């Protein structure tokens, strides 16, 4: 997709988002949902950069999200670091962890990368609950309960000030979306795609597989860590329960609904899936089953997600194909 089209889709999606508080601004529960849309859009997009663009089957995205959230939360609670600074430190910490996880993955073929990264995900929960976690200040099986909200020049962005907090989230999410867009459309993104398509050919033309694959890990885990940290300060409480498979699978659904490798489809996917999931709330216990069935149907009907569907429609209409 051309940069212009990408920018237009991102602009429209975030533009509509920006208008929604005018309709529902006084309903706190709906505002919370909108904020979660903006947060999951970033995580799903990072995952898409990793899987769809770089072709690295990493299943560590939720783990990096939780690492960022805990890192910033612990810094703020235990070490009294001011939240904006703690979020940045958490981003750098997660980027470092991303590189550490990425290093062994460079030498591994696809399925093994999936195993290693999912191993990180699986190991994180016992670590946070266990002695290491408690020593670091993770709160053990209780989790973190008193994460302070973001405070900028004395103004507190908490759920008590939901509309301003929404717009701050919108800005952070949009900034992440734009960073991802520019990376994808730069020669970094071309290097990711070339390595995914044919690593040998790419290397023979001067691309360092080592450098660019580590860069994918660093970039996606940095942004995921930042947004995870942001989430922690917004929500105020954190639990290792986030590492249960619910969040993991719903993020994957967002990415698939948007269309793997069809950024910014993952943003649309996140918005649609959160909205769909809330609309199905009356189904109660049947929601998960219905959701699962819908996903199967959707993936079979639209293998490239909504973005792939619209791109195909657009190219079918164009005379040159």
């Amino acid at each position, binding site marked *: 997709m051309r940069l212009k089209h990408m920018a237009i889709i991102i602009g429209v999606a975030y533009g509509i988002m920006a208008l929604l508080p005018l309709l529902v601004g006084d309903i706190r529960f709906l505002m919370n949902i909108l904020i979660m849309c903006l947060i999951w859009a970033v995580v799903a997009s990072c995952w898409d950069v990793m899987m769809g663009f770089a072709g690295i089957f990493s299943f560590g995205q939720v783990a990096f999200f939780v690492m960022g959230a805990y890192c910033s939360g612990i810094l703020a609670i235990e070490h009294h670091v001011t939240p904006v600074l703690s979020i940045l430190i958490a981003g750098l910490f997660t980027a470092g962890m991303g590189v550490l996880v990425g290093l062994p993955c460079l030498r591994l073929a696809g399925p093994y990368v999936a195993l290693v990264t999912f191993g990180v995900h699986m190991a994180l929960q016992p670590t946070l609950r266990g002695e290491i976690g408690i020593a670091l200040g993770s709160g053990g099986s209780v989790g973190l309960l008193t994460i302070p909200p973001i405070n900028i020049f004395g103004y507190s962005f908490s759920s008590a000030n939901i509309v301003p907090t929404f717009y701050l989230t919108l800005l952070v999410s949009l900034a992440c979306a734009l960073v991802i867009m520019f990376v994808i459309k730069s020669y970094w993104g071309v290097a990711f795609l070339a390595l*995914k398509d044919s690593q040998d050919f790419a290397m023979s033309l001067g691309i360092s597989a080592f450098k660019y694959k580590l860069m994918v890990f660093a970039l996606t885990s940095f942004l995921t860590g930042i947004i995870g940290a942001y989430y922690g300060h917004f929500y105020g409480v954190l639990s290792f329960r986030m590492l249960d498979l619910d969040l993991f699978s719903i993020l994957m659904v967002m990415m698939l609904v948007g269309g793997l490798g069809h950024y910014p489809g993952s943003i649309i996917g996140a918005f649609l899936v959160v909205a769909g999931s809330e609309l199905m709330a009356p189904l109660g216990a049947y929601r998960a089953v219905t959701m699962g069935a819908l996903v199967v149907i959707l993936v079979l009907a639209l293998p490239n997600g909504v973005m792939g569907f619209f791109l195909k429609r657009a190219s079918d209409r164009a005379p040159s194909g």
Partner: protein
Amino acid sequence: MLRVIHVTKKFGELKAVNDLSFEVKAGQIFGIAGPNGAGKSTLYNLITGFYSFNGTIEFDGRNISGMPPFRIAKAGIARTFQIPQTFPSLTVQKAISVGSRFGAAGGLDSAHVNDVIQFVDLDNERTQNTGLLNLLGKKKLMIGAALATKPKILMLDEPMAGCNATEIRSLMDLIAKINHDLKITIIIIEHFMKVLTELTEELLIIESGAKICQGDPLEVVNDPQVIACYLGEPDAKRK
């Protein structure tokens, strides 16, 4: 320009390249031939840094043994692959500019990318996805991307494989033009003896990873040892 000195590569017990030494001089078109499984492609993978090996490879007087592929590409050695490689996510123009952006000293040179696209005659396919090119198109794309790195030496691995007579002719013209007009040294692995005798100035024959003989192509193809080693290969003897 390129010196291969006592190079050996083992895959387990198999010696794919066995104590091989030769030298390619600047400006040459240098041919390499040998039966299937002789170790020709493996030799390319050693020169371009894809595998580790024993021995030494020097390029422009500099030891390049152990260097990673991307560094060897930047140093001025470009190559194509026996099994055509493309970037199905990229257009022809983007794919060729990958070579320029990452492989050429000084980075992306759009004017040069344009020249290369004209040179390999892919102007009409410029905006086409590389995965949709036909076989000849894919081969020209690989050559174009390699040329975009502004190489001193271009190594072609069976560029004519699977091509018909017209396509072979056009590729031979292209290769001669690269050598003559762009002043790029060429190493070519080929099965078609006629291509080698017409195109190359020096020919190296290897079998089981070792040198059988080397020298003037017309003399080499009449060498009794070479004929003997090709007897089991009716396919190559056909011409």
